[in-house]
């Protein structure tokens, strides 16, 4: 019997794995997708090769490219942007690591306290969360982002639009700032040359400003795996978890099995407050079809907002209050683009190093984009085709013309010089709503059972969600205008299912949450959740990964205390950074 089995090696699972491996527990991590052990020999910087949701290396699908991606059913228009494999969706994330808005935590007393989703707050205080943020930020590590052409343009525009800089990690007022990124900042030749002969490690260290965050980070060339620039979990937490015995006295390296799709959580009925007790898991080898099972004292679900409800339902686990899979949030993402008559670095540098935060509304961030992705972004809309039809939505405002999809000659004109574009992603502080849900399809099934079905209807979001989204799009357009944009387009995206949160939410009320205040399932003893789905809300808009990782650190402590009689450590110890020399040596010694 294992001490702990963790299902999923995405943004959250490896955090629990590393923390508990450091405590010496026997941990098994099962990942449905690939383990990309040799990125420099397998990956490229090319969009379709890496990012195609159907055939790309970074897709939600099996490692074998000849096999189709894993399908999910969508009830309403939208698209998925998630990744299976060790690293999960952090394999293509931008490393943005802001903390959540303090207003979404219990006990918040700020003057703007009426601005948030107050029915679905964190069941503990921001002060309590802060120490887990600090631990996680030091482990990854999170660093203040450097400035390139597009960041300089964005900061100047934000100042011109009347915003002031935010100078701390806690978001206390509306303003702009460099991103706090889980990216090692440029060192040596990095960021100072495009000559590939000068960009090998250790001549170049940290981010080389290649502009390919979305294609996965394998640079600098020749760097040990834990010293690759971006701190996706395949570069940070997972190397630490796999070598915990080498860098921590009393630590125990985890066992990682990839291509292992968990199809069932095993459980026994029991008397007491919780209806069942988790006893282990059953998984299917994606390559051979063989079915395996193992028992464990604790099971941690970390398969993500879509797969967790599916697995729960396919395992016939109890759902006494009807909230399993409910309350899904997605930041109601939107896209606003300005066209300039001069170079604003639209395709250069780190993918996202500047942002503005608006407590009570959400956030916006400036992004660099490769051409296929940008064309894809400009052609996504819930408001028809600009100049042709609006699908009854559209909407005019601080941007030019109706919101909508850019198409035909307008698309070609806007795409005629990608470095003259500045694009801003809108991250809405969206409400937890019961009707937005994940359950299982009644039509589609694959080798692992009925597939997940997702229903998040953008047109029927709450009034506050829609207000916040419009407010942020307006602020984005104002910043672009202040920067001197000659033309500004708002897309009004159909849902892009990338920032997903809260489908298995924790909460302070047994009436509207799946997890208790420790992220343990209210209905199943010994079953915890440690990914975005455990978040109680959409964090007020900030990118979710850091908060999920901080919460997962807290959850690891709770597991260690409740089931293994251990003591908490975050207040008592100093974290070991994932780029510490002892970790690097361990990674090299183990041949990772």
């Amino acid at each position: 019997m294992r001490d702990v089995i963790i299902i999923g090696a995405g943004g959250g699972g490896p955090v629990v794995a590393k923390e508990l491996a450091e405590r010496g527990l026997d941990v098994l991590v099962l990942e449905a997708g690939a383990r990309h052990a040799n990125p420099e020999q397998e990956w490229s910087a090319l969009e379709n090769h890496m990012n195609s949701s159907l055939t790309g290396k970074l897709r939600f699908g099996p490692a074998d490219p000849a096999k189709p991606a894993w399908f999910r059913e969508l009830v309403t228009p939208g698209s998925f942007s998630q990744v299976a494999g060790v690293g999960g969706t952090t394999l293509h994330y931008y490393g943005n690591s802001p903390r959540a808005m303090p207003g979404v935590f219990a006990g918040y007393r700020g003057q703007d306290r009426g601005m948030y989703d107050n029915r679905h707050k964190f069941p503990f205080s921001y002060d309590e969360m802060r120490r887990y943020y600090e631990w996680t930020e030091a482990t990854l590590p999170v660093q203040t982002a450097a400035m390139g052409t597009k960041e300089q343009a964005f900061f100047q525009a934000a100042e011109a639009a009347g915003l002031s800089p935010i100078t701390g990690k806690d978001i206390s007022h509306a303003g702009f700032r460099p991103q706090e990124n889980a990216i090692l900042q440029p060192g040596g030749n990095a960021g100072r040359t495009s000559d590939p002969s000068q960009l090998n490690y250790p001549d170049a260290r940290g981010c080389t400003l290649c502009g390919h965050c979305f294609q996965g980070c394998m640079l600098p060339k020749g760097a040990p795996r834990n010293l690759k620039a971006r701190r996706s979990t395949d570069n940070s937490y997972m190397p630490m978890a796999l070598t915990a015995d080498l860098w921590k006295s009393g630590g125990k390296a985890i066992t990682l099995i990839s291509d292992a799709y968990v199809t069932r959580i095993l459980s026994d009925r029991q008397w007491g407050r919780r209806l069942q007790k988790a006893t282990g898991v059953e998984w299917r080898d994606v390559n051979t079809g063989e079915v395996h099972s193992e028992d464990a004292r604790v099971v941690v679900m970390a398969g993500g907002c879509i797969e967790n409800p599916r697995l729960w339902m396919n395992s016939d686990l109890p759902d006494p209050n009807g909230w399993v899979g409910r309350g899904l949030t997605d930041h109601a993402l939107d896209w606003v683009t300005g066209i300039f008559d001069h170079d604003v670095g639209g395709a250069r540098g780190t993918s996202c190093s500047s942002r503005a935060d608006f407590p009570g509304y959400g956030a916006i961030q400036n992004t660099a984009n490769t051409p296929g992705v940008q064309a894809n972004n400009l052609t996504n809309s819930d408001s028809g085709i600009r100049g042709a039809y609006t699908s009854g939505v559209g909407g005019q405002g601080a941007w030019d013309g109706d919101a909508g999809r850019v198409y035909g000659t307008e698309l070609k004109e806007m795409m005629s010089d990608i470095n003259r574009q500045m694009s801003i992603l809108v991250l809405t502080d969206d409400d937890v709503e019961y009707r937005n849900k994940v359950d299982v399809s009644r039509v589609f099934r694959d080798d692992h059972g009925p597939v997940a079905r997702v229903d998040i209807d953008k047109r029927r979001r709450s009034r506050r969600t829609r207000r916040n989204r419009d407010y942020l799009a307006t602020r984005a357009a104002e910043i672009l205008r202040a920067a001197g944009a000659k033309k500004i387009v708002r897309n009004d995206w159909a849902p892009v299912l990338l920032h997903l949160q809260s489908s298995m939410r924790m909460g302070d009320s047994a009436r509207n949450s799946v997890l208790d205040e420790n992220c343990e399932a209210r209905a199943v003893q010994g079953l915890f959740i440690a990914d975005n789905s455990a978040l109680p809300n959409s964090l007020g808009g900030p990118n979710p990964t850091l908060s999920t990782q901080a919460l997962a650190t807290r959850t690891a402590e709770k597991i260690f205390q409740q089931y293994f009689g251990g003591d908490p450590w975050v207040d008592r110890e100093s974290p070991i950074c994932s780029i510490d020399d002892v970790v690097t040596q361990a990674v090299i010694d183990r041949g990772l």
Partner: protein
Amino acid sequence: MSETKPTNSSISSGRRQLLIGSGVLGAAAAVNPGMAFAHWGRGRGKGRWGRDHSQENVEPVEWTVEQLRTALDRLRDDTFFAMIAFGVPGDDPYSEYQGVSTPYPGGITTRADLYLSGGTDLLVPMPTEYMHQLLASVATYLAIQPMDIPGMAAEDVGENGEYLLENLNSSFTDYLEGEASNSVLVALLINLAATRVAGSIDGPFPSPFANLSWEQKAKVFEELESESSWLKRAITWNIPDRDYREATPGVLSSMVAFMLRIAGFGSYCEFAVFNPETREVAQRPLGWVLSQYAPDAPPSGIGSDDFIGYYQGRRSV
């Protein structure tokens, strides 16, 4: 909307409209004119299905499934060329015919149509039975709410014509029983919507959609994206299986949204010139040329000299 005329055909009027309006008959005829209605032809100047006396003496021949598959694949290709020209127009015949073109290449030159076709096939794992019920529902709907296609679907086409239409219908049914592809299904639905929007469509291409102006194409997608879409209603309303019926609007929306987005992504990514052996582009992709991206590629860059410094010199907060 026209009223349904009585017919002695064993094929329902809805099924006839489906075969004709979605472009199946036209595509089959285009592949092998000798197999078309002996006394029917097509082409500009005589109406899309105008009589062609030069073929009156052609003996009727049965369509095989494989011949029909070839015809439908070509129809799909034709439709997708037109789709790409709609999204990213260029200097190709499809762009020129739609009335919106540019003096330099567009998405068709990048072969984004192939990307679209391959992607659509992979997008949704449609069960065969589901596809059957879906098309049957459309046919039933068309029988009750026929499209406004003058003198086509219900016209007396003579014994020879009936024989050929029945043969085509039979082959089409057999085709659906086999390895029918999503991309063909999507092409048929887009063409059906095109016919619905524009009525009888005259033009040089087998695909009704390809013969539309850019503005008419936009109207087709306005229809397809509408919450009260005629096509969604037609597909959904008579599917006997409740689960299939409930899933259909979402599946259709996914496919339509994918079509619209991938015209952009496929045109600007490296798909057409990717070398899997080197994991590098064989030459600079046209989409990169059009967007002035990575002027020194290949190879793809692994860094830039874009580092300016830190905002206000702040290295940490």
